[in-house]
């Protein structure tokens, strides 16, 4: 699996371009005008930029017909699939660290007064991981082109449907008070369950010959 991670590492590094940096800066600029939005914007951007790298490696694998090579290696399907999830976890950890560092710098420079840097870093970690929990099985199932449609459904359609449902049922989510610890446990459990389902779908798809 280490070899596969090194391969993905090379692919990510070789395909990182200045466009990413430019897009990142363009998106972050409004945050400087409204400092209260800087940390939420930063955490989301870091999560999406880093999270999308797994999909980039999957798309490169598809283009190179890497699968043909992969099946001749002494690697199990489990190792092959786990490689992508481990990469996703590494990128999520990097996104956590990046938000902590950038948020810390912004606070030191008195750009923000926010005390919730760790909270937003955690959010960035979860979004990065969640992104790949959708994208990895979707790419294995439908190919890298069509998998974006699945992502649109998850990111665009599902939250809209949820919002409409809450409106129809006249539930005001802002009036509901959540216990932070309860929320954290729910979030963590939900992530574990989703991760297991995502991995299972990917593994079963790759196992079929």
């Amino acid at each position, binding site marked *: 699996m280490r070899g596969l991670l090194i*391969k993905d590492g090379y692919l990510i590094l070789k395909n990182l371009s200045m466009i990413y940096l430019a897009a990142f800066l363009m998106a972050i600029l409004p945050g400087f005008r409204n400092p209260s939005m800087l940390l939420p914007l930063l955490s989301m951007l870091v999560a999406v930029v880093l999270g999308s790298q797994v999909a980039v490696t999957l798309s490169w694998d598809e283009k190179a017909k890497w699968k043909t090579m992969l099946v001749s290696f002494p*690697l*199990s399907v489990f190792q092959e699939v786990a490689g992508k999830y481990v990469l996703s976890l590494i990128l999520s950890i990097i996104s956590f660290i990046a938000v902590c560092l950038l948020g810390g710098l912004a606070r030191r420079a008195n750009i923000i007064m926010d005390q919730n840097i760790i909270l937003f870093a955690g959010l960035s970690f979860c979004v990065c991981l969640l992104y790949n929990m959708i994208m990895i099985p979707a790419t294995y199932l439908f190919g890298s082109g069509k998998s974006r449609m699945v992502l649109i459904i998850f990111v665009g359609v599902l939250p809209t449907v949820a919002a409409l449902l809450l409106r129809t049922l006249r539930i005001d989510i802002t009036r509901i008070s959540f216990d932070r610890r309860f929320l954290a446990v729910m979030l963590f459990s939900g992530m574990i369950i989703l991760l297991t389902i995502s991995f299972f779908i990917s593994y079963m798809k790759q196992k079929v010959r």
Partner: protein
Amino acid sequence: MDYSMEINGVVKSYPGSSFILDNIHMQIPYGKIIGLIGENGAGKTTLIQLILNQISADSGNIKIFGMNHRKMEKDIKSKIGFVMDECCFHTCLSAKEVGKILKYIYLQWNNKDFEVYLSRFEIDQEKRITELSKGMKNKLMLATALAHNPDILILDEITSGLDPVVRDDILNILKDFIATQKKSVFFSTHITSDLDKAADIIAFIHKGKLVFMEEKEKIKNTFRIYSCSNEKTDNIKNSEICAKYYENGQWHFLLKNSKSEIIGKEPTLDEIMLLFIKGGR
């Protein structure tokens, strides 16, 4: 154990397709280059995919190094070097980076050997794969297959589309590979002249069936090719005819173990293939 690979009664069919790889029996001895020939769609690549466990057989079994190829897949694959017609490494990588990746995939990977092969093949280690020619890419694939010291090399059409010099280089590498140690090469190709140069045993697959698998020299002694007009066909015994076809006012026969008094000529592998394919229509 005398054979590196044994294929016993393997059958593979695809739903919705009339193609069937039918009851293939093969034994691949050590120290030999086995050339697998057959027309497009004959089943050569399907057979290789079955060997590599990329697809499942409907029935039959394959033993590689005496082990079941499905149960001991990882152990077997660590001793197999596989090279195909296409370079499936990412084009943005360099040969050096490919070596660094494979070092962690194959336990027996030898980076020194890899570097030796790269310099022997005159491949620039720093150049990205996209900058390499087709011949260089194939040589890189071969270098990666050889650098983990496999016991069997499986090659799928690697010489197609290459110039004669590169093809000759590759054939020499294969000869060196089996000359020194207990190794085998299983080599599928369209270019039968390559097999004339390098192969010890020829296996011919036609329409999913294994027509023959014989020592190259024995094939030359076994088969005769004979062409004649319609009137002279009475001289030929039906039992000796393997394949025949009629073209341009002449009958062309492939005769096996012919004891007739007719003098045929020794066929090339190309002619044998042609007669079986045209004769089967």
